[in-house]
């Protein structure tokens, strides 16, 4: 699904964040809204007054005060209530928050102190923190219906330092019941002062999602391309636990992480017993992954036994374990009940080989980009077989 479009800014302005509106919802609301004007809509100056910004599919009127972008290339994806940003410098219009979706993110920085081989969002050495922090506070202000879940992601969110604490405090004040999940490499939490301050924010529904790729430093540090990262992450997880911060462990399955996967499961159980969830995730063929594919790719069908062993190891120990980004037809049937449909609405797709499959509803399908790189064993599953498997695991 489309998230960006471009047009021509009427005059120079900075970044404007607002709620997209396709019709007039009253003068009081206009100060928060960005009005999208459809082709052929005839509006007077007073119809357009008071909006935070204006978007025109065709040519718009001259504007020197209200930020305006005209001749948008695409507008079908823009829906009422979406929170969007208009960039005066580039004419870019980006959807930041769409209330109808299940998955919501606050993207807080492109900076990162790691450089994972399979990063789906390759980091940049450009200081974007101040600007994105302003934008994210604006988004939080504009969310009317607090979502059930919200993920803070980057880059590495802890590089925000005080700004991260500010965002978490804002979320706590505005939507305390929203479950906030921070995707972090956990390294910064090794600093007791940082972790204590984070804990003192006392957000009632917050947890960390921290990747761990091996039970030994060499492999983990290679995967994240940072010397000492393993030790820092382990120390960070322990500081978090000591301060009562909930954590999830995330493992991406690939050529580097699979050989010691069962031993990693054992390490997690013995050393990180406090983890409230362990997510075993399939590789995403995007970002850095295509660049490093030789170092990463193993057909999920070929590691299904290792995956089952690790999942069972954790499950019999009452650890909460899930499998993400895997198609049911390449998993052992015993693993179906652990597989979660985690792929974002706008990311998932199916292959021609999926045609006639009776498990589509239960299956997560593919990331769109996975259409280019996927298991050689994707196949439809017959209805009887699906019923049989679902009955037994129920």
């Amino acid at each position, binding site marked *: 699904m489309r998230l960006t479009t471009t047009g021509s800014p009427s005059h120079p302005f900075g970044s404007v964040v607002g709620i997209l509106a396709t019709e007039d919802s009253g003068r009081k609301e206009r100060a928060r809204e960005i009005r999208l004007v459809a082709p052929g809509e005839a509006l007077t100056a007073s119809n357009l007054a008071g909006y935070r910004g204006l978007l025109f599919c065709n040519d718009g009127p001259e504007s020197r005060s209200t930020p305006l972008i005209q001749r948008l290339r695409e507008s079908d994806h823009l829906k009422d209530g979406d929170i969007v940003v208009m960039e005066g410098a580039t004419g870019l219009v980006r959807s930041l928050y769409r209330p109808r979706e299940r998955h919501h993110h606050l993207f807080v920085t492109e*900076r*990162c*102190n790691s450089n994972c081989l399979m990063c789906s969002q390759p*980091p940049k*050495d*450009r*200081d974007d923190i101040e600007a994105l922090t302003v934008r994210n506070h604006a988004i939080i202000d504009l969310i009317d219906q607090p979502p059930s879940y919200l993920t803070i992601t980057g880059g*590495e969110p802890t*590089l925000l*330092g005080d700004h991260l604490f500010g965002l978490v405090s804002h979320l706590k004040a505005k939507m305390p019941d929203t479950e906030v999940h921070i995707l972090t490499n956990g*390294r*910064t939490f*090794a*600093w*007791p*002062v*940082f972790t204590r301050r984070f804990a003192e924010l006392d957000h009632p529904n917050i947890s960390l999602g921290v990747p761990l790729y091996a039970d030994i430093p060499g492999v983990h540090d290679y995967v994240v391309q*940072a*010397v*000492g990262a393993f*030790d*820092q992450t382990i*120390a960070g997880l322990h500081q978090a636990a*000591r301060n009562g911060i909930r954590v999830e462990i995330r493992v991406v399955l690939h050529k580097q992480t699979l050989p010691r996967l069962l031993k990693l499961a054992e390490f997690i159980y013995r050393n990180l017993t406090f983890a409230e969830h362990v997510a075993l995730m399939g590789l995403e063929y995007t970002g850095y992954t295509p660049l490093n594919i030789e170092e990463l790719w193993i057909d999920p069908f070929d590691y299904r036994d290792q995956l089952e062993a690790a999942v069972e190891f954790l499950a019999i120990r009452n650890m909460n374990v899930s499998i993400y980004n895997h198609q049911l037809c390449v998993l052992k049937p015993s693993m179906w009940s652990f597989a979660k449909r985690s792929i974002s609405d706008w990311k998932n797709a199916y292959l021609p080989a999926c045609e006639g499959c009776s498990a589509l509803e239960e299956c997560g399908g593919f990331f769109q980009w996975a259409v280019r790189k996927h298991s050689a064993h994707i196949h439809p599953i017959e209805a009887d077989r699906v019923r049989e498997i679902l009955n037994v695991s129920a």
Partner: protein
Amino acid sequence: MGPASSPAQATEIALVQFDRALFSEEVVLKGCYWLARDFICEIATADSASIQVTIKPRQSSSVEALPFAKETLIQSVSDFALREKIDAKTSGIRDLLLAKAFSEAGVLEDAPTGTFGDKIEQENPQGMFKILGSC
């Protein structure tokens, strides 16, 4: 390298000699301790270079078990010698670990080490980790 053993002088006893250069009195004693249910071990200093153990069964019925007892003793003394070696290398760390384990949380904790920042962070004299490091 193994302990020298001499043939038993009588069928009712077994003799084992341990080279002092390889085995301390302590480890020989520990080995003998575990035979004590069924055997009596007499420990003597044969000469300045070795320790001699005489193994006698507690009950005459255990005479057949003497070769096994001897083998057990040799293995067990070697293992205690290994333990002694490991203990010598690790007792300091054990003390440290126990002190850390039973001190108030955080008191004896090590400060984080290594590089934490990205390039921008490292180049910033006011970087967060520099501030954290000086707390």
